[in-house]
């Protein structure tokens, strides 16, 4: 069963911010990307690294040999261990590099209160 968990007031998550919150037995990063809020589980599916420690960044887009084209600024999480890259908005690995994806959860705002909808995990 999924529940709605309050994680703070909307003003707690200004553009560019990415605090880590503990809620419902999970550690989540809350990201404000261009005014929209996203909730990402703080766990890389590869080796279970705390991926939300990573800075929010952009990356080099697929390009011709010898060319560097920067893009996706503010939308990319690059894991602090093995460097796997994900799109914060979808949780998907970038450019088809990997099938595994970050766990992401719907975020809603009601009367200035921010909620994350997800299944709670029992803490061991």
């Amino acid at each position, binding site marked *: 069963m999924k529940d709605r968990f309050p994680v703070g007031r909307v003003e707690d998550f200004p553009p560019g911010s990415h605090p880590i919150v503990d809620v419902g037995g999970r550690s989540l990063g809350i990201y404000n990307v261009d005014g929209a809020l996203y909730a990402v589980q703080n766990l890389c599916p*590869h*080796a*279970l*690294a*705390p991926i939300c*420690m*990573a800075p929010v960044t952009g990356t*080099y887009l697929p390009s011709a040999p010898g060319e*560097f*084209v*920067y893009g996706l600024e503010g939308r990319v999480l*690059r894991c*602090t*261990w*093995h*460097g796997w890259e994900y799109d914060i908005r979808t949780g998907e690995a970038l450019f088809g590099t990997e099938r595994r994806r970050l766990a992401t959860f719907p975020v809603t705002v009601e009367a200035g209160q921010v909620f994350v909808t997800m299944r709670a995990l029992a803490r061991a």
Partner: protein
Amino acid sequence: MTGVIDLDIHPTVTGGLDPLAPYLTRAQRDRLEFLGAGREGGGFLVGRAQMFAPNRGQRPDTVSPKGGPPCSDVDFVREHLLDRCGIDAALMIPLQPVSAAGWTYADEAAWYVSAFNDLMRDTWMAADRRFHLAMTVSPLDPQLAASEIRRFGRTPGVLGIEVPLINIPMGQRHYYPIFEAAQELGLPIIQHGLGGWDLVGVTQAAGGLPVHYAERYTLYGQIGQTQLVTMLFEGVFERFPELKVVFVEWGWTWLPSLLWRADSTWKSARIHHPWMKKRPSEYVRDHVRFTTEPALECDDPEHLRQVVEMMGGPELLLFSTDYPHWDSEEPFTVLKGLPEADRLRIFRDNAVDFFGSLLRLPQPVG
């Protein structure tokens, strides 16, 4: 004096890459910044592929709350690595003394590694019995290295001898004084090469110097393969029948093809190596072990089990994390393609069998 023409002056631009920004794309500028071109007094892009590992080579979660570089705070490492991952014994291979192999000064390198060994004994090893040490010797003067082994090697908690590589393959007689002392004290050689490739004097990859980190990382095993194959065919394990060697972080999934080729070549070229009484793969089984990190990640986990079977079985593998480096692996997720009994053997039993009473375990071995 008037009318002089000077053909050699050197102007300097200050402000890092800022003054060049109007002439570069954003992507070009970021890339140059990342490679260090903006450093004060810099402007020289050196092909140091080693510097540009993912995340600059280090895991940020390994920085202690007190700050400082990763893996520099004994108390934090006890908690963050040993306690959290359930580790009873960890082999420390400090890379600062390993880098002394790249010096050109043999005496100074010997002083430095010797002081480093003493320091580790009095700090990390004194703080927690779980910390064991690969004592470092400098390969620049093998006689001095042998003296250091005899001076320090009986220190409780020393599990082996890290011999950094220079451009002489490990099978050759330059190293024999080191092997002799190692065998005398019953200490394995720990073969963890420094990345090299960008340091004076250290081992280079075959075939030319790559530019990118990914090239270096992918090809890394070839340096280790050179060490292993030369030790086998030069007869090191016949000259030093009690000698044991651990190859750390060279990879191991390449072993099946390497050993097949070595075994079949031995049959054809045995007359040049009459001292070899058994197949190369049998010397490996009897004398050599490999640490797991970086473990192969294949799309089909069954392939991992097959590789382990083809290389000679899980007995050849010893678990390692490579903490705090970017590519480190923790016991929770690694080697999932193997049967659980094999994983447990790799996580503990193989090391107990190999190192025996050198290990300082809660329940002493044997």
